């Protein structure tokens, strides 16, 4: 016999404490209720008889104390969960790793769906379309979005979630685990863990079917790749020191290679395969960017792949802000991956989404990777003050961006009323007035500037002034080249130690970038009209790059994140937490550190991040995609190999009746207590 419940030391402490309390209560004299009687002499005869039995009463009282102490001892024994050693050693200890990665959302487990995926049956029974009169179409009309793009709205996603869905691989895996839980014997113990980008234990090591059932219900699939190595490490740790340790992996087997540090040792590995079909097409990449020169327009890059073993004809749909933007038909050979560009698009302001489906009304196994999402970078209106006697080239370059609010003032009228993000000094250098924002100097003079202006440099027959050396990685020179610009006259610029010479001639810097007390400046050491730069496409690009750099419009904007990784989302540095709205509409508070909100995303779709309150409130949107070709390979593995060892099949449990001794002890205690209670109230024992 061995105690498998509470530790003996703990039981001893509890027993001593409660036992002492019981004895104390018996030692304390009972405070009797005072009752008046009309004539106490009448009780004397009765009480004389009672006194003769007082010794027996004391004995009964002592026996009652012994009974209470015996009941206490039995209760403590029940808490200890005594079991026979033989019974305990027969039990198995299992850690069930339930794969909840994106590929487990594949819907190929139903027999009808499997026949459709195999091309053996029409898909009319499972296909859902925006037919006239359908709730999807009605809802799309109410929302004012295109029916084909309804799914990219939260309401559309909710509508799909509420409609009857096909059984997924995860549902089938849950059924397998449910059967496993039902077969677990009394001596066996099981821990259930969800395996995705992290490992989440959902239950304790138990054989309680209720707890395991609840844990199973909490498991849900997410749009990430499973970290199998981490899951095995966790399982190994959980099983450390336990006899008959066993890891059971329930999933489709698309788990990737295992890290070199994972050693299973003598822990048995079993595999329960799930899944039937490998037919799948996916959008494996999706990004969007605005054109630098025309930010009202944008281009989209898509990468699609056929991970199945048969050729597929697919229909690629692009939606912008709920409206259909483009439809393409593609032919994808087995295992082929194609990239497609959608250039020169316009119309959408914020959300873009792509959707792919098989032509001819067929289906692939994994619908969740048929969609991809992206958010266009937000446009900011920049307030520009131009201090210039007149410069046609500069005016023309500023006209290219409709998001610029340009105010032009003569040098004598500087400063113009109001506050500006950027002030451009064209050939003039007056004292900088407050509220001028960042400074862009064109051909500056020597006074009132934060750098030194050297002597004039002139082109001659031997040497043409130009940019002999440029920093190509500078955001000021993104998408442009200044290498062959010819300049008639220029003034080399000398900045301080931390200033950066973005473009240099052999005599000195001609393009200087720096910062003084938080105020940025960029200086160009020549008059553009005395060069061929304004005649090049590089001129307006350069002007807009400078302005973008000043107003911090992120030209390196990420249009979508990848699920399964930790996202660092831009947020105000002054806040410590922000509210993140997930694609399903639920909200979650995420921490903000050093101006970045940190979140481990596991669902593809559109997100919204809100921070601050009142006038300081800020919000931004972003998108997340699976973008994992590995998860799109949904072909189920027939076997699972870890470090060259093939996982075995799950052995059947030995179903035996193991007596739970503590239950009988507890029933005995209850029975004795009931008898004692009845006899007490019947005054048989008092």
């Amino acid at each position, binding site marked *: 016999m061995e105690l498998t419940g509470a530790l003996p030391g703990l039981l001893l402490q509890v027993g001593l404490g409660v036992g002492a309390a019981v004895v104390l209560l018996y030692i304390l004299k009972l405070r009797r209720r005072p*009752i*008046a*009687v*009309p*004539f106490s002499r009448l*009780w004397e*005869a009765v009480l004389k008889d009672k006194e003769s039995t007082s010794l027996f009463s004391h004995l009964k009282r002592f026996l009652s104390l012994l009974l209470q102490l015996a009941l206490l001892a039995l209760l403590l024994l029940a808490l200890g969960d005594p079991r026979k050693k033989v019974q305990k050693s027969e039990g198995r200890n299992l850690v069930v790793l339930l794969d909840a990665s994106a590929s487990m959302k594949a819907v190929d487990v139903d027999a009808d769906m499997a026949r459709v995926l195999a091309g053996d049956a029409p898909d009319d029974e499972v296909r859902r379309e925006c037919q006239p009169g359908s709730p999807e179409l009605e809802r799309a009309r109410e929302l004012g979005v295109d029916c084909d793009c309804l799914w990219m709205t939260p309401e559309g996603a909710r509508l799909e979630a509420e409609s009857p869905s096909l059984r997924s691989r995860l549902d089938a895996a849950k059924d397998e685990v449910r059967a496993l839980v039902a077969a677990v014997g009394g001596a066996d113990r099981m821990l259930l863990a969800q395996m995705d980008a992290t490992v989440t234990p959902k239950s304790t090591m138990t054989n309680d079917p209720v707890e395991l059932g609840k844990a199973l219900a909490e498991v849900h699939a997410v749009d990430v790749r499973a970290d199998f190595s981490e899951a095995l490490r966790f399982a190994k740790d959980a099983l450390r020191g336990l006899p008959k340790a066993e890891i059971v992996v329930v999933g489709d087997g698309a788990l990737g290679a295992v890290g070199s540090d994972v050693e299973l040792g003598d822990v048995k590995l079993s595999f329960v395969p799930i899944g039937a079909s490998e037919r799948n097409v996916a959008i494996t990449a999706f990004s969007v960017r605005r054109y630098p020169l025309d930010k009202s327009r944008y281009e989209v890059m898509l990468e699609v792949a056929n991970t199945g073993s048969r050729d597929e004809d697919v229909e690629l749909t692009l939606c912008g802000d709920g409206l259909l933007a483009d439809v393409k038909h593609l032919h994808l050979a087995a295992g082929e991956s194609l990239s497609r560009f959608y250039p020169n698009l316009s119309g959408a302001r914020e959300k873009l989404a792509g959707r792919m489906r098989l032509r001819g009304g067929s289906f692939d196994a994994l619908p969740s990777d048929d969609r991809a999402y992206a958010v266009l970078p937000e446009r900011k209106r920049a307030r520009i003050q131009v201090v210039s006697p007149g410069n046609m080239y500069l005016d023309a370059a500023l006209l290219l961006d409709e998001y610029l609010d340009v105010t032009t003032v003569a040098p004598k009228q500087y400063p113009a009323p109001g506050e500006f993000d950027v002030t451009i000094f064209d050939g003039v250098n007056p004292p900088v007035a407050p509220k001028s924002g960042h400074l862009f100097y064109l051909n500056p003079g020597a006074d009132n500037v934060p750098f030194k202006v050297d002597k004039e440099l002139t082109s001659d027959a031997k040497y043409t002034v130009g940019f002999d050396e440029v920093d190509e990685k500078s955001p000021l020179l993104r998408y442009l080249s200044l290498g062959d610009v010819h300049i008639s006259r220029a003034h080399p610029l000398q900045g301080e130690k931390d200033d950066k010479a973005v473009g240099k001639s052999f005599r000195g810097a001609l393009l200087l970038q720096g910062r003084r007390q938080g105020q940025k400046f960029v200086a160009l050491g020549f008059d553009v009209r005395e060069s061929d730069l304004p005649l090049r496409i590089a001129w307006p690009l350069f002007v807009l790059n400078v302005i973008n750099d000043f107003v911090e419009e992120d030209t390196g904007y990420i249009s979508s994140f990848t699920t399964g990784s930790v996202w660092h989302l831009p947020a105000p540095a002054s806040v410590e937490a922000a509210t993140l709205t997930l694609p399903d509409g639920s909200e979650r508070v995420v921490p903000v550190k050093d101006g970045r909100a940190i979140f481990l995303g596991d669902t593809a779709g559109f997100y919204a991040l809100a921070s601050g309150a009142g006038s300081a409130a800020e919000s931004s949107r972003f998108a997340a995609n699976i973008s994992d070709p590995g998860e799109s390979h949904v072909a189920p593995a027939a076997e699972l190999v870890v470090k060259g060892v093939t996982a075995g099949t799950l052995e059947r449990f030995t179903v035996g009746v193991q007596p739970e001794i503590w239950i009988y002890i507890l029933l005995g205690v209850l029975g004795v207590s009931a008898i004692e209670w009845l006899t007490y109230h019947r*005054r048989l024992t008092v």
Partner: protein
Amino acid sequence: MGVLDLFRRAAAPLSRRRSPAQKEELFDDEFQRKLDYLAMVSKRVFTGAIRAERRTKRTGSGVEFADHREYAPGDDFRYLDLHAYQRFDRLLLRLFEEEEDLSIYFILDNSFSMGFGGGAKLKQAKRLCAALAYVGLANLDRVAIVAANAEISGRMQSTRGKARIFRVFRFLERIQADGPTDLGTALRTFVAQHKRRGLAVVLSDLYDPAGFEHGINVLRYNKFEPFVLHVIDRRDKSPPLRGDLRLYDCETGEEREVTVTAKVLERYGEAYEHYLEAVRRFCVSRQVSYFPADVATPFDELILRVFRRGGFLR
């Protein structure tokens, strides 16, 4: 509202007149109507229509024949019954009852025990006392009432005539349960204060720690004719007690710890019955009129039972 009530209201001073709603419930209209009825019944059944004299036990110079007894030397020859001598050849002396008005003393126990349990016993005792007093007053007997516990705690002087019943009422209404019981001591004081012997009606539960016999014997030894109206409350027999209790006497404060079980209650009930039997046996053996008066029985029914049983009226 009864006739007596109207009379009382009319006779009372204005300041003391009370509305019917304020009247003491103990002697309400219904009670007074029953008194009238009981007075009539007592006359019809026991005394006839003659002037309501009471006859003492003493034989003497009365005109009404009472009994014969054997002649003894020294007896008055004039009372020899010659007719009996001729018929039976025995000398028998004719005895006549001596007529005199009878003194009736009502000794009402007003100890704490009489007020125990809501005062049902004291209330019943007061009603019985009032009813019997009314009968006595109606028969032109001299009626006096004393309240006794460990001493004489209240006293109403002897009075005669039906109209004095309101004085009886007022006296009884003032009596409250108070003090311990010691009938022996109290009645010794009583006999010392009342030289004129007569019927002494003791209305008590006889819960006397010193023994109920003492009080009755004091009356007997001093030539009073005790009439014991034993007021009984059957709830005393089976009190609603259970569990571990500390019992204390409502009069003496004496405490006893007891665990009351069904068996203990059963034994207590037996002890109670033994006590009642002991009282009854004592009275019977000493030729003391004894009548148990249960508080659950209506007082008028009890009075009628007293009349039928005899001992109060002769």
